[in-house]
């Protein structure tokens, strides 16, 4: 058992898989000598060489397009898109090409690509470098979407994503990079589509993702002080989505809160609210409440940014005032 930062866990997880599979390669901007602009790939080029950890020109379409072409030959490829906002630059390849290749060829072509990207707010990067865009990817049939919240999950879900034969978008949260956690020794391989109940509770369920998970846990701790027992679920993966875990928890608590960093409209919580309305309606004791970033771009000023994304306080206040 070693304590790793979330940042180091990224390189640790990739290295585990690159040692296992000599065919696995990685493409991206500044991932080799620089070790990634977020220092998430430090040490990889030294261990695996510049042919496997390859710096590319500034060409997001080409990074994903070439990753797909290489993956067509059956080799797994990790492609890094520096900021998740830049997925908009190469969304054609992600949404129209990678996601549809298996389908359009009747299962003959697989695209085992993991698109890693730095997601989310909290780093004062402004409107074009701070978004949470996991819902952009969630709506595309053929893509899988993963967003871990702890170093151990980064390692295990990275392995699962790399070994998955479908294209997986792997969101690494910028504001979690410095956070620390225990990572078990030995090979770690997790499973996509499995949520984790991080705190058991009986009065309400809080479903959260990535950076919102530690905030949900903090809020639950405060609520406990008021005699409210909140269950916290870390979804970890949006596609596949562990609906059983969510519905099972709602059956127990009767109330559901989603904590989403994405802007309000069409956030992943809306989909979960819809699933619970369909399949868990009679277990609900009150409306599903979504706690989201307002439907605005992320501001760059620190004071303002802190006011936009859901804070521990906002989660606590919302639950406190709406639970009964």
């Amino acid at each position, binding site marked *: 058992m070693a304590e790793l930062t979330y940042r180091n866990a990224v390189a640790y997880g990739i290295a585990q898989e690159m040692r296992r599979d000599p065919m696995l*390669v990685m493409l991206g901007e500044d991932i080799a000598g620089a070790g990634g602009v977020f220092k998430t790939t430090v040490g990889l080029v030294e261990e695996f060489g510049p*042919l496997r950890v*390859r710096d*590319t*020109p500034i*060409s997001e*379409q*080409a990074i*994903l*397009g*070439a*990753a*797909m*072409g*290489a*993956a*067509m*030959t059956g*080799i797994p*490829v990790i492609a890094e898109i520096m900021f998740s906002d830049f997925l908009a630059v190469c969304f*054609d*390849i992600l949404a*129209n*090409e990678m996601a549809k*290749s*298996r*389908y*359009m*060829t*009747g*299962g*003959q*072509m*697989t695209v085992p690509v993991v698109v890693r990207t730095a997601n989310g707010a909290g780093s004062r990067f402004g409107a074009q470098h701070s978004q949470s865009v996991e819902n952009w990817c969630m709506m595309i*049939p*053929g893509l*899988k979407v993963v967003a871990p919240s702890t170093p151990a999950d980064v390692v295990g879900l990275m392995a699962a994503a790399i070994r*998955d*034969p*479908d294209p997986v978008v792997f969101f690494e949260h910028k504001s979690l990079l410095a956070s620390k956690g225990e990572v078990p020794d030995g090979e770690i391989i997790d499973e996509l589509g499995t949520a984790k109940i991080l705190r058991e509770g009986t009065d309400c369920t809080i479903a959260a993702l990535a950076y919102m998970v530690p905030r949900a846990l903090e809020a639950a701790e405060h609520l406990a002080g008021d005699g409210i027992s909140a269950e916290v679920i870390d979804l970890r993966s949006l596609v*596949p*989505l562990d*609906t059983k875990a969510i519905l099972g928890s709602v059956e127990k608590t009767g109330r559901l809160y989603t904590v989403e960093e994405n802007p309000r409209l069409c956030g992943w919580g809306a989909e979960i609210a819809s699933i619970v309305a369909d399949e868990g309606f009679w277990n609900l004791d009150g409306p599903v409440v979504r706690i989201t970033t307002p439907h605005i771009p992320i501001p760059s000023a620190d004071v303002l940014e802190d006011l936009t994304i859901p804070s521990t306080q906002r989660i606590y206040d919302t639950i406190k005032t709406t639970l009964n």
Partner: protein
Amino acid sequence: MVDNPIETNSPGSGTRIDPGIVRCLPDQTRPTSRLLEHKLTSDELLHLYQRMVEIRRFDELAMSLQRQGQLGVWASCLGQEAAQIGSAYALADQDWVFPSYRETAVGLMRGITPGDLLHQYRGTWLGGYDPYKHRFAMNSIPIATHALHATGLAMAAKRAGDNLVSVAYIGDGATSEGDAHEAMNFAAVFAAPVVFFVQNNHWAISVPLSAQTASPTLADRAPALGFRGMMVDGNDVAAVHRVMSDALEHARGGHGPVLVEAITYRIESHTTADDHTRYRTAAEVEEWRERDPIARLEHHLDSLGMLTDDIRRSTREAADAKASAARIEILQLSAGDPTELFQHVYHGERPLLQEQREMLRAELRAWEEM
């Protein structure tokens, strides 16, 4: 079109001068200043003539099937047979083709059956052919995206030590896409074995080449990015074969990518959903009809005394027979199990899709009972 030499360079071999627009067969419609030797035997020329006639006949069949309501849409390759067949003939079995939607002739040259090629256009079923069997990727309807896939595959092949070249077939319009630029720059930076085979057919739907680029040629793009560009008369099958062979050899030899600009013309409308008479003159089309690639080869074979009436007739009859067989095959294409809709979205089974498949099954049962 000017027959001037263009300056190009390629990684590892420095700046070099390639001949301007390569021609090997005389053009019966105009005096040709300089003809280069081609690399084909007489038998091969005759074989390519037969394939060109046969594939044009197939294209006519697809056009008429579309007009009869049997195909959803068709993008004719009429007039581009020399560019497509000459280049495809130069490929090795292990090479990969990344086609656009107009590469019918290339697909047939790679051994895809007419039925497999037309499933998609007939709307009978999901995609038809196996891309791995023919090393012919899904035809790309989005523009120029496949140039990136070709580049990535070539990079992987290079690392694996596979002796293959990846060929992206794109058009003049596609060179305006960022994808084309990014693919070419990537291929050049990583010295990937890619040939960008650009069929300059002068029209991107209704937009003429002059409105597509201010560059004097499309091949000029290559030296600007540090790799070799070549130009060829795309209606001269022997010249296309020669240039493509050189390009493949260069890429296969580890010298990086090559851009081949094959100058040709789209005789038909963009697709059957388009009407070219709205945006171009009949005189222009007529001028290019006179420069027909099959007539040009015929003329040449005639001058060699190789084209007897018997051969002409048997070629036509063989093409007709193949077209009739293809017509039967196409009209008999059958649909499969509709619940296959939910397969192949992801690897393996997914609960959400299983649920939706069951909903469709229930709907289908209810309709049957009505």
